[in-house]
């Protein structure tokens, strides 16, 4: 095949993914949407009846909801990492992953943004969290890490959406060529009159570079801010200086795992094996291994700090974390996040897509459990022994957690059928 044919082939391959959906797809979409509707139903029930329908209690005021928030923000991170950071470093394998990763970022952030709302005792007063001028002259408390969160997450969402969209513009223009009728008009509208002139490309590349540069520090800053929700507190087990890098590494770790989880089936179902190769997976696996090592190191350091401090509160919290009521969770976390990824030192396993898929599922679970362990065990045993208590998630919390996956996959499945799943222009560029 000569070059023009090849280019056309790419377009057709990628866009063929947007063909009429099959039964399997519809079933998956139906399942996800049902889960999401369950979330809405349960949330309504919780608002109507009171937060008490969740298992959170005194002293464990944060539970699965905040765990989910941190988890989904974490998932979002590697999307940005893969598309923006790797773009800046000109890592070529990025092209195969960046579109799904960016989509994942946007959707994960949408899901993540839902959880602070769900966990509010009075959701209907959420606008108190935004600074807006009134005669009352009431402002938000800029000392509160939660306000930093509001700004961090909304900034991140805005930047991610813009970045995602800008990346899509040339592909919209390509899709426009292949479509008819209303769809053509819609793709046309979103392509913003893209014609692919040299001048447009010049400006476009500048913008893309700028956005990539803008998004990159967000990878570090947003999750640092999220980690400060905990680190800025006084609670033993939370109040640690290493939280920011620890959380950022964790976020990239979990996000990379989620990318694998999503891309492996996508590659298979949409028959994109030609564009997403084992080499690509090996590179991603290396990132996974590297971040796993950082996370493991952080675990060790946390315990070391507690032990070295001699502070009885800290020491008890970490003893409890490893050996207390939640010991099973703790060891699941250690196994999934620290031990299992060590197998990636073996090259053949790194290149084994099936193995990577299974491993990524473990890591997903492990990272969710990690957040749970950090949040719950620290709150369950803080200063006053009289007020010690435990926490068990309620059925509502479990349902809402599943529903959040429902929302995520609903959005992701819709993405698969409506937008070009790989960056056509970039693949062409690298042909």
């Amino acid at each position, binding site marked *: 095949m000569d070059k023009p044919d090849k280019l056309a082939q790419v377009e057709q391959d990628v866009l063929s993914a947007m063909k009429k959906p099959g039964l399997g797809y519809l079933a998956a979409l139906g399942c996800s949407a049902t889960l999401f509707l369950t979330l809405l139903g349960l949330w309504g029930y919780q608002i109507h*009846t*009171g*937060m*008490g329908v969740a*298992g*959170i*209690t*005194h*002293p464990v*005021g*944060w539970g699965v909801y905040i765990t989910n928030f941190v988890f989904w923000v974490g998932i979002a991170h590697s999307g940005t990492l893969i598309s923006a950071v790797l773009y800046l470093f000109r890592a070529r394998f990025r092209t195969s992953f960046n579109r799904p990763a960016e989509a994942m970022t946007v959707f994960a952030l949408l899901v993540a943004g839902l959880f*602070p709302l769900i*966990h*509010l*005792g*009075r*959701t209907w*007063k*959420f606008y*108190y*969290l935004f600074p807006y001028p009134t005669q009352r002259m*009431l*402002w*938000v*408390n800029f*000392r*509160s*890490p*939660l*306000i930093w969160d*509001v700004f961090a997450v909304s900034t991140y969402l805005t930047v991610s959406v813009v970045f995602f969209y800008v990346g899509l513009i040339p592909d919209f223009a390509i899709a426009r060529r292949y479509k008819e009728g209303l769809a053509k008009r819609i793709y046309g509208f979103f392509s913003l009159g893209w014609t692919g002139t040299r001048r447009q490309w010049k400006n476009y590349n500048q913008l893309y570079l700028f956005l990539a540069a803008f998004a990159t520090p967000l990878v570090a800053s947003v999750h640092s801010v999220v980690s400060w*929700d905990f680190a*800025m*507190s*006084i*609670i033993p087990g939370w109040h640690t200086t290493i939280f920011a890098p620890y959380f950022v590494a964790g976020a990239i770790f979990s996000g990379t795992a989620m990318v694998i989880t999503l891309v492996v089936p996508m590659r298979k179902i949409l028959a994109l094996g030609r564009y997403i190769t084992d080499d690509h997976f090996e590179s991603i696996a290396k990132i996974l291994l590297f971040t796993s090592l950082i996370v493991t190191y952080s675990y060790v350091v946390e315990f070391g700090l507690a032990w070295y401090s001699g502070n*009885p*509160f800290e020491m*008890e919290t970490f003893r409890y974390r490893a050996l207390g009521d939640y010991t099973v969770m703790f060891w699941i976390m250690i196994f999934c996040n620290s031990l299992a990824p060590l197998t990636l030192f073996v090259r053949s396993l790194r290149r084994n897509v099936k193995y990577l898929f299974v491993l990524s599922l473990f890591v997903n679970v492990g990272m969710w459990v990690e957040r749970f362990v950090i949040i719950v065990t620290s*709150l369950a045993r*803080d*200063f*006053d*022994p*009289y*007020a*010690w*208590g435990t926490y068990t998630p309620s059925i509502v919390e479990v349902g809402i957690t599943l529903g959040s996956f429902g929302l995520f996959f609903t959005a992701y499945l819709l993405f698969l059928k409506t937008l070009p799943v790989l960056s056509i222009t970039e693949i062409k560029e690298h042909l």
Partner: protein
Amino acid sequence: MKRRDFLRVLGILSGSTLLSSCGSRKTKDFVSSVLPPEEGVIPGEAYFSPSTCAECPAGCGLSVKRREGWPIKLEGVPGHPINDGGLCIRGQSSLTRLYHPKRVEAPMLRNGDGKFQAVSWEKALSLVSESLAGSRDAGRKNLFLSGRTTGSLSLLIDAFCGKLGVERLPEFEVYSHSAVAEANGLLFGERDIPHYRIENADFLLTVGADILATHVSPVSYTRKLSRARIRGDFRWIHAEPHLSLTGVNADRRFVVFPGREAVLLAYLLRQVLERGPRRHGLPREAVNALPRFSVENASEKTGIPAEELAELSNRVTKARFPLVIAGGISTSHRRGLEVAVLAGMIQWVTGQIPGLVDFARNEKYGGTGTFRDMEALSARLSRGEAGVLFLSRTNPVFSLPAGFAFRENVRKAKLSVAFGDLLDETIKEADLILPLSHSLESWGDVEPRRGVVSLVKPALASLHDTLSEGDMLLRLMGAVSGEGPATGYREYLFAEWTKRFGEKGKDALLRDGFVEESLPEKRVTLNGGKASAFLKETAAEGGEPKAPVLVLAPSLRTFDGRSRGLPLLSEVPDPLTTISYGRWLSVSPGTAKALGVKDREEATVSSGDWSQVLPMKIQPGLAEGVFVAGRDFVDSPPLRTEERTGEATWYLEGIRIEKSGKVAAIPVLSGSPSQQGRGLIPDPSHKDERHHHGKESLYPEHEHKEYRWAMAIDLALCNGCSACVAACYIENNVPVVGKKDHLKGREMSWLRIEPFYGEAGNVDFLPMLCQQCHSAPCETVCPVYAAYHNPEGLNVQVYNRCVGTRYCSNNCPYKVRRFNWFWHLWKKPLDRMHNPDLEVRAAGVMEKCTFCVQRIRAAKDRAKDDSRKVRDGEVTTACAQSCPTGAITFGNLLDTESKVYRLAHLTRAYRVFEGLGTNPSVYYLGGAKGGPEREGHG
């Protein structure tokens, strides 16, 4: 018009209507009443009227706080001879009895199918008068049984019985203290409980008497004890076979083998006789008859280590004013009378009669009957002798052992008429229920201690179609004579008071709420002959309960079970176990281990053919083989009656325990019985956590211009009685959430008593409330400034700004913030209890103690009227007001003259988790209870 509507209108007529400053569009609360409100009542302002608590026989003076005509809080009357401003947990909760949703609202008659049906008062009273006549004609006896009754009501009952030919039976009280009364009758010819002047003693030995929680007049004793402790040169040793709140508060607590208290007292009596302080002698026969125990012997028999016994006898013999009080659990077994007699003899020999033991002002238990009397009554009832049986304010069906078959016997009366307010076991058996007004709805007086008359004055018109007992009796008398009531009870009382105290005295009674008559000193002498004879006939030992033994102890929260139905009392946990809802059986750790039971594991307790399933609570400080349950936790236990005194034994002997392996769902609110070495209550064994880190704050310092509110809590005085907790609930509209939420740890109390068990078996109580930190961790994390620091040093929570992130609660090292997990509703008419100065918090909102900011606001309002600052002592929190020991002091830390300033600057003042740098405004005064290192205390 229904009576209730009528009353409502009456309220509006007299201007005492709800007139809240807010009101919604729907409530028609902006009303032009027909008449102006009564003198001195200003809508929107709280006002107080005197009354007397009727929740237990102690008769504490009440100051009823009212708003727009509705009582919203009960407080003790400062200067009252009984309680002097303090009020116990049950007294605080008495308000929930008034507004109890399940009160009997009208006279009820049992109809043909055994169900109750509301009837009119006229019909009910005429039925009673007909039955009275009918029974008399049929040769049956009409009987009147009541709970302990004093004051004018007792006279009226006598008159009633005399006029209508009704036989008045001895009053029935579960805790009749008859062994002590019997002993005093035997030794001194005074069959009653004397008044103990604990405040003047320099050494106190209590044997079994639960003086802080349930014994005779607990608030009175608590205040006296505090006065003695504050004085400084006071030691208190308590000996008991089980574990009580009183025991853990003594300077030293001895665990005695059950039933061996007499050995201890006999040993002590001999020590006193031999070594002084002897003011009176004993007849020779008595001295000879007194059993001799060497230290080792006594130690072996009682289980108290020999060196401790020696120390104890040293203390008693060296003291100038030693006082020995025996009672409660230790006088309620087979050797109970011996214990009481020996205690009385020690009192006599040490010369404290008269003096510390005052028979002039005895506690008026002379007319109280015993279980023996009840046996007789039961027998008479079963023979069908009874015509009309009146049962007033008493619940024998619940309290008497199953063997009495009282339930069945009550049914054998021709007509049983019960007076009461809640449907208890006895009332349910009656044929006719005549609903009693609450003491806050009635006129009356009580004389809980001879010479002390306390006023009962209505604070509101009756909520329901009820009458006070006095009115009921007068109307009955009228109905029988056919003339109609001669006067109302109010007029009757006024006449009585004028007769007894004169016009001036009556006015003083109405104004102050009490009158204390001066009484001549009563000199009693020991009846040596009887004493010697008694000692000769009996031995100090033998007949002790066989192990394992189940002790049925009176309960701080329900007394003899009569306060069980009050919702607030189940919400506030038992201070020793921190169990709120449910029943349990306490067992020592050793015994639990031997039995192999887990904490909260259900077990079947049985004795003979009686058995009951109870969860086990492992309780440090208990003797091995001793199980303890609340008196009201067990249903109809097969208690025996002690023949000589008529006192019921509170022991079940030789019980069997069968564990079930099932862990019961009972809420234990404490996360850990131990401090985990964290120095909440500093102890020499703890690492010193009190040092400051001297950290610089990133935030600017708060400035306080006029006030910085602070609190000092003296842990040496705090006895864990939890009155403050109940007071806080009522003052601050804290919701009662129930067992389900308690099991999840979602109790809402703003103030809690944390018991911490030490290794030495000691228990220290730490009242934990919002510490109003100067550098508060909760404030910085609130995204919306719902938690913020106000210029007066309060850590304010603005409820309607809160969005409910719960971050503040997470970040609070003291975990004193409470989240509203649900919409909390007050069942009508309990919502009348709402303090309108506070919002009822919505679901999803965090709430917490703010040092009763509404009281501060009111005080500042008053001060502003006079253009001055709030004076020290002018404003106090609900907890401090209620505290019977006076352990809590509230005030302005900027005022160097204030009491709280002085206390906060004592060397033994410390703050919890000072090392965290939160800089709290609550100062705790540490130090062992009554330890020698105590410093002066105002």
